């Protein structure tokens, strides 16, 4: 999912502490926020925009392209279904610890309605110079500068470090797509890669993966067919097996989800996989000039 500056945005859970704080940052950066949702505070104004009782009510006031959910775990399913039924086609779910069956339920509803979901447990998406959705430091000029490298990351903190390293080395970012740290996600690495492969502004891609699951292996099948250079870093090489490394999805079980499997699949597909994030920029430069 790539977000564009002109898109209209709704904030579900706008009146909470995080919702308020990050709505202010998104607005200051240029994100076109038309309103927020809080069923208990419908009718008031917050962060300079109207608060509605539901996404459906908000959508009646004007077309909404995307919704960002600052909603507690057990409320996410209901809020997402509200947004989907309101006809909103892009959802960004920041919440961590959403019950997985709730996630599967809302994703099934989204698929049927033709809506795209980023997350859950994502820090969001940034299109430098245009807008951002979520809680990324888009406004920090050392971390984000407009440019031509698309970045896909399962982690917000590590994604931030990688963007910082790229900008430091003189690269700019075309789109940052934080896909999230959960085992079941609305947008997989492969699906984000499809977006960046088709995106005219992205001339290369950085994948920030981690141990657990099979998303990197699945993405490798597409990397093999792509013309754009792909550089990857995978976190968790030193992680002990059987332990969840902070993210619900970051766990090696038996042979599944291992660092070696992911690195091997991406390398076999022609991606350059670096040992530490500091190696990403130079690997990208080598791949670009080598073409």
């Amino acid at each position, binding site marked *: 999912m790539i977000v564009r500056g002109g898109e209209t945005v709704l904030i579900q859970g706008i009146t909470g502490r995080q919702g308020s704080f990050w709505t202010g940052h998104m607005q200051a950066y240029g994100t076109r926020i038309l309103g927020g949702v809080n069923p208990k505070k419908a009718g008031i104004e917050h962060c300079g925009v109207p608060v509605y009782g539901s996404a459906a009510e908000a959508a009646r006031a004007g077309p909404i392209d995307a919704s960002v959910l600052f909603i507690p775990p057990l409320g996410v399913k209901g809020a997402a279904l509200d947004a989907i039924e309101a006809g909103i086609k892009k959802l960004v779910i920041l919440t961590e610890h959403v019950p997985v069956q709730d996630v599967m339920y809302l994703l099934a509803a989204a698929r049927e309605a033709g809506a795209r979901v980023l997350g859950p447990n994502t820090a969001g998406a940034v299109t430098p110079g245009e807008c951002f959705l979520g809680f990324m430091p888009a406004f920090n000029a050392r971390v984000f500068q407009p440019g031509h490298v698309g970045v896909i990351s399962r982690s917000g903190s590590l994604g931030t470090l990688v963007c910082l390293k790229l900008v430091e080395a003189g690269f700019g970012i075309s789109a940052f797509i934080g896909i999230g740290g959960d085992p079941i996600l609305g947008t997989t690495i492969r699906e984000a890669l499809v977006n960046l492969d088709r995106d005219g502004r992205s001339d290369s891609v950085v994948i920030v993966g981690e141990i657990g699951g099979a998303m990197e292996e699945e993405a490798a099948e597409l990397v093999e067919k792509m013309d754009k250079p792909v550089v990857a870093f995978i976190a968790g*090489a*030193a992680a002990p097996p059987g332990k969840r490394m902070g993210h619900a999805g970051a766990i090696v079980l038996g042979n599944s989800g291992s660092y070696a499997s992911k690195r091997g699949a991406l390398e076999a597909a022609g991606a350059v996989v670096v040992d530490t994030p500091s190696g990403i920029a130079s690997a990208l430069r080598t791949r670009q000039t080598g073409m």
Partner: protein
Amino acid sequence: MNFEEHAAKPLLAAAGIATPSGELATSPEEAAAAARRLGLCIVKAQVPTGKRGKVGGIRPADTPEEAARAAQAILGMEIAGQRVERLLVEARAEIAREFYAAVLNDPASKGPMILFSAAGGMEIEELSEARPESLLRLPVDIRRGPERARLEDGLAALGLGERGTALADLLERLYGVYRENDAELVEINPLALTQAGDLLALDCKFTLDDSALSRRAELAARGTPEKLTDLEAEARELGLRFILLEGSVGVLANGAGLTMTTIDAVRHYGGEPANFLEIGGDAYVKATPALKLVLANPKVKSLLINFCGAVARTDVMTEGVLDAWDEIEPTLPVFFSIHGTGEEAAVAMLRERLGMEPFELMDDAVKAAVAAAR
């Protein structure tokens, strides 16, 4: 959260899936007494892991004496790092045939998946490699549940048409167990067809979704909590994710991805991390208790602090670290790398209170911490 077999099987029974009669035993005497009531039986170690049979944790017994001897042998065994403290003594069935049945969360289809195989008893990984043609994989639309016709067609394709109705009934019930209990996985392996022609769940593996614990408190009380060290348990109480590792470089970072990367880098540059501890997300305000946990590990010889702020503000985290530092007054060397949200304020604070500069490159901070721990 994993469940032991004896805690998982009642979930099947409640959904109308037959399980053998059985009793829990914690001593050879109790095992013998159970065997007297049950007749021919099987004595099974109760630990929340598979592969118990291969290491001798599951033994048949024809008499109470044999049951006592089996119990004697199994109690106290270590299976996959878990000490056996309980046994399940179950009546032995006359088995004609074994199947495999499971419902689990499938990341590829982003929904539930029903798995069934005409070849039971093997681990599913082996099964899908050795006999892929024997495996029915049926993705389910979670809003509608499994479609009866597709279940029956799938079973017929495995050559099980004549048992199609009974097996489809069982899979629907198993799906109900999965759906009503927020399961990540519910598996019957083996599922027996008895000589008498009945289906009987000989084993059951059940994993509850950790993110659903808050709305399944009653169920969770029957599961097996993860085995934690004292420090890990203390961290859990504080809402922090701490994993004790073997090495001597103490690590504090924010966010799962960055923290994993930090311990990877310690290993990459020739050191060994002492712990995984991240204070990302809402936990970024807990730097003070977090640092105390890291330093409570006597193996720690140097400390590496790596912050890269997105939602987590580096100034807030750095202040927490410095407060803990003032309180504990540790003497070990510390190395910082700080970037992102709140960086200027964080660096100024570090200068003022510790008279230190952070490393510009994370890699340099890691190398310095590794060298200092030697």
